[in-house]
């Protein structure tokens, strides 16, 4: 009976230690989380190519668990769209860009996502 008690105690403490170690490792080696803000106002094809390439790099890091793409926000001066899961790079590559860039909208989006990484081209 006494032996069982000690055994359970050791087992419980071991599990607790393991859990704490896990949490510590997770905290120490946490994957950085990121929100990507994509300005889809008119962008010439060659410049958009660069933007989609940057997104592709981020997406690959997300796949390799070096980075967690939390949210992707597409915005233009006609509106904005929040994508809860990151789209595959070809979606961004084939995205149509249109209209004037809007600094006011950009400021609003950046205010809502202060740590967001902004991808945009300036024409």
């Amino acid at each position: 009976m006494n032996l069982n008690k000690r055994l359970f105690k050791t087992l419980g403490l071991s599990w607790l230690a393991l859990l704490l170690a896990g949490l510590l490792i997770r905290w120490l080696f946490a994957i950085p989380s990121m929100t990507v803000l994509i300005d889809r106002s008119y962008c010439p094809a060659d410049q958009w190519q660069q933007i989609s390439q940057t997104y592709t790099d981020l997406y690959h890091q997300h796949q390799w668990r070096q980075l967690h793409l939390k949210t992707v926000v597409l915005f233009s001066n006609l509106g904005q769209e929040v994508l809860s899961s990151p789209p595959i790079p070809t979606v961004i590559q084939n995205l149509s860009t249109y209209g004037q860039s809007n600094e006011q909208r950009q400021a609003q989006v950046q205010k809502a996502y202060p740590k967001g990484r902004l991808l945009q081209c300036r024409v």
Partner: protein
Amino acid sequence: MYTLLWRSAGHAQDGKPLTIAELQSPQANSVFSTFQQQIALTTPTYLDLKQIWIRDPQKFQAIVMAYQSYVTLKKQPGFEQLAYIPFGVPETSPMVGFEWNTASEREALQKFAAFTTSASMQQLAKQQGFEPTDYLKQGRFPPLPSGKVLKAAQSLWKQRKDGGQTVYMELVVDTSGSMQQNNRLPAVQAALRFASQQINQGNQVGLVTFSDRPTRRLSLAPFNKLEQKRLFFAIDQLQPDGATALYDGLAIGLADLMEKQKTDPKGKFYLLLLTDGERTDGLNFTQIKDVIKYSGVRIYPIAYGEVNQQELEAIAAIREGSVYEGTPEKYKFYSRTCSKQISDPVSDLVTFLIQSF
């Protein structure tokens, strides 16, 4: 479209009017191209779109319509959840008198104005949805564009409306003996001549006529100056005579368009069927019904005179088209958008439809 371009130029923030220079910028052009890519279906008028939507409420996510149309459409079964998103400049229809109006015309206008502003008529108008909405009250709409800007916006639309897709249009014209009545055929000829000037280069137009039997007058080919001359020549040769092999003409037109579909499946295919009578010879509706259904061609019959209205409507409905009536009462709406060089109901309709595609 003006509102979209105005917003895309960033004027929703500063409230300034759109300029011609902005219209020509890649920013404005890119908005227009993106907008065109989202369009599921185009029809000559929004009333046609509305009819298609009533037939199939799942067909569109949204269509452009006046507030009054929204009020009536919301009462239809299946449209209870319809939401209205206001945009654009107010579509007011002012009553206008001119200095050259005669005394009796002026008097008539004044009486009409008194009638429309009477309490009972105002009440009725309100019931029909003619009321100042919050959007109108707030006055946060784009400033009215100048005539020059509107013309430039129209040109932009005209040049780019096809969105990179080729439009194939077969004109199937009745040349049976009855087209001799009331100068119907000369009116159609005038309309075709005028409307052909509005066709974008590169789009394809063909002409098929039918009386006792169908005749291919002009094969579908990329439209240019030479094709236009060929079309003019073909139009000038038309003579009214014989019976009405309507479906034989339709079959030839469809066959030509379907042949083109093989090489350009992404094209837009239209057939304008102009007839003034019932089929009296050749194929019948039952024989050709399935061909129309699976043709991928949208058919717009223009009824002129004593036609089998029910059958024409059935033809149009198969492929989401509409019947256009060339009667004086019905044509006024279309004639507003057409040139004043011609003023016959059917010629205005033909012009209107060709300009629309």
